[in-house]
């Protein structure tokens, strides 16, 4: 196989003195959908935040498209094609939907084409076009999640990281968001999806990682993980 789009090796991440990740290694290849599951506090958010440059790595190496981004200042990582839909959405509540989306295209490479990107986002989420002038904080949870995904798409990522996109949404809205993720992946964007809703994430993923207490416990094809005792025990509580 060719070089992976995302390669994480020996990654340790700390919050002050408290270590949250130990020796984590994951890979995502071009065009893949990979899911990361694990119980609460396992370090899933820490992992994607480290990849997105939101939180620094303590040790190890993160490379995107063959480029080492481990020591880059946080705002430079997106320039290599990484965009994140953070846990809890974290849209800019006092900015309009349109301003949220346009901010997604802030990085130099995406800025010039932001009108074309916007048309693409509206095609996936027509409702955002209707809501363009509204303050993002006034939208429903499902619509806010669309804003968060749309904002990430505006950055024209090669790798899209989604941290619990179903969190707090009604089942119909979860369906909409997951349909969108599949369509985005079909357009050639590689996807990492972190989920508590394990069944849902495994259904769209090719491969999966199980995190537990800051370490990769299990890795393999999504189907294999679904049937594994570890996953059933640690996440599904069966």
């Amino acid at each position, binding site marked *: 196989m060719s070089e992976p789009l995302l390669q994480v090796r020996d990654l340790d991440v700390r919050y002050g003195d408290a270590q949250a990740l130990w020796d984590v290694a994951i890979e995502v290849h071009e065009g893949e959908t990979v899911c990361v599951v694990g119980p609460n506090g396992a370090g899933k958010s820490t992992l994607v935040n480290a990849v997105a440059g939101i939180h620094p790595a303590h040790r190890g190496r993160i490379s995107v498209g063959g480029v080492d981004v481990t020591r880059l200042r946080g705002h430079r990582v997106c320039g290599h094609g990484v965009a994140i839909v953070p846990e809890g959405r974290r849209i800019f509540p006092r900015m309009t939907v349109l301003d949220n989306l346009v901010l997604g295209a*802030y990085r130099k490479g995406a800025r010039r084409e932001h009108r074309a990107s916007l048309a693409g986002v509206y095609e996936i989420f027509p409702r955002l076009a209707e809501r363009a002038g509204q303050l993002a904080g006034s939208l429903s949870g499902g619509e806010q999640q669309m804003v968060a995904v749309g904002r990430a798409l505006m*950055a024209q990522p090669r790798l899209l990281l989604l941290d619990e996109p179903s969190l707090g949404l009604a089942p119909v809205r979860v369906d909409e968001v997951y349909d969108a993720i599949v369509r985005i992946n079909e357009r050639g964007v590689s996807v990492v999806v972190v989920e508590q809703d394990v069944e849902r994430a495994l259904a769209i993923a090719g491969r999966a990682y199980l995190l537990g207490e800051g370490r990769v416990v299990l890795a393999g094809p999504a189907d294999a993980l679904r049937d594994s005792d570890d996953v059933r025990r640690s996440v599904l509580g069966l």
Partner: protein
Amino acid sequence: MNVIQATLTGVLIGGLYALMAAGLSVTWGVLRIINLAHFGLILIGAYLTFQIATSWHLDPVLTLVITVPAMFIAGAAIQWLFDRLRLTEFNSLLVSFGLLIIIIQVTSNIWSADFRRMSAGTNPYATQSVAIGRLVFPVTTLLAFGLAALVVLAAHLVLRRTFAGRAMRAIAQDRAVAGAFGVDHRRLSVLLGGVVGATAALAGMVFSLSNALTPDTAYEWFGTVFAVVILGGIGEVVGTFAAGILVGVLSGVVSAVWSPAAAPFVLFSAIILALLLRPQGLFAVGGVR
């Protein structure tokens, strides 16, 4: 007639308050820094206007050609320093207060603690006024109001319509996520510090046109300017402008119909009342925060 004159003069003087407060408000809203040194920059702006106009016989408004770039650099440098120190909101109050004291000390070493005022020959604006019927408006206050309106409008448009402006509002709301989308917090804060410094040059120039200068003046601005910032809503440029006018009118009218000594009392009572009713600021309507 007296009240009408006082009201309209208050509106115009409110422009100066807004000009002084706008930079403070945006820095507070976007960068979470309460930069008391801003008052020091306004003071330096005023003294530089006095000095350059007096020594080189330059029109005081034209001194902006020198003071605006100079204060841009000073403002950017201060912000750069704050950024290195990784100040919290509260610490910024202490550190910038220290910086203000240093600035005031330096100005009194250079210009002494005596009152300094541009001579009538140097400053033609001080004695000019525009009369409309029986109402009279000093040119200096018209200038202050015009500049304030211009600055506020420009800031509003930049914050709403440009990538840099959106990025600043995004930083105010979620710095980490803004960073994940490529917003370089350090660079923007230095840029913002520079622009805010430039507005201090404008405010200082306007102040020096109609006032005698002494280093302690900087402390006298505190009450009124903070009132304008809080009333307008932190980080809200248009709100700051409206609050400046409100404070100007309130002080003017109370001084005219009652007594100038009563103005601060009425003003701060009104502020406390306003904040009880609308803690986010009287004119907060979706600014940077």
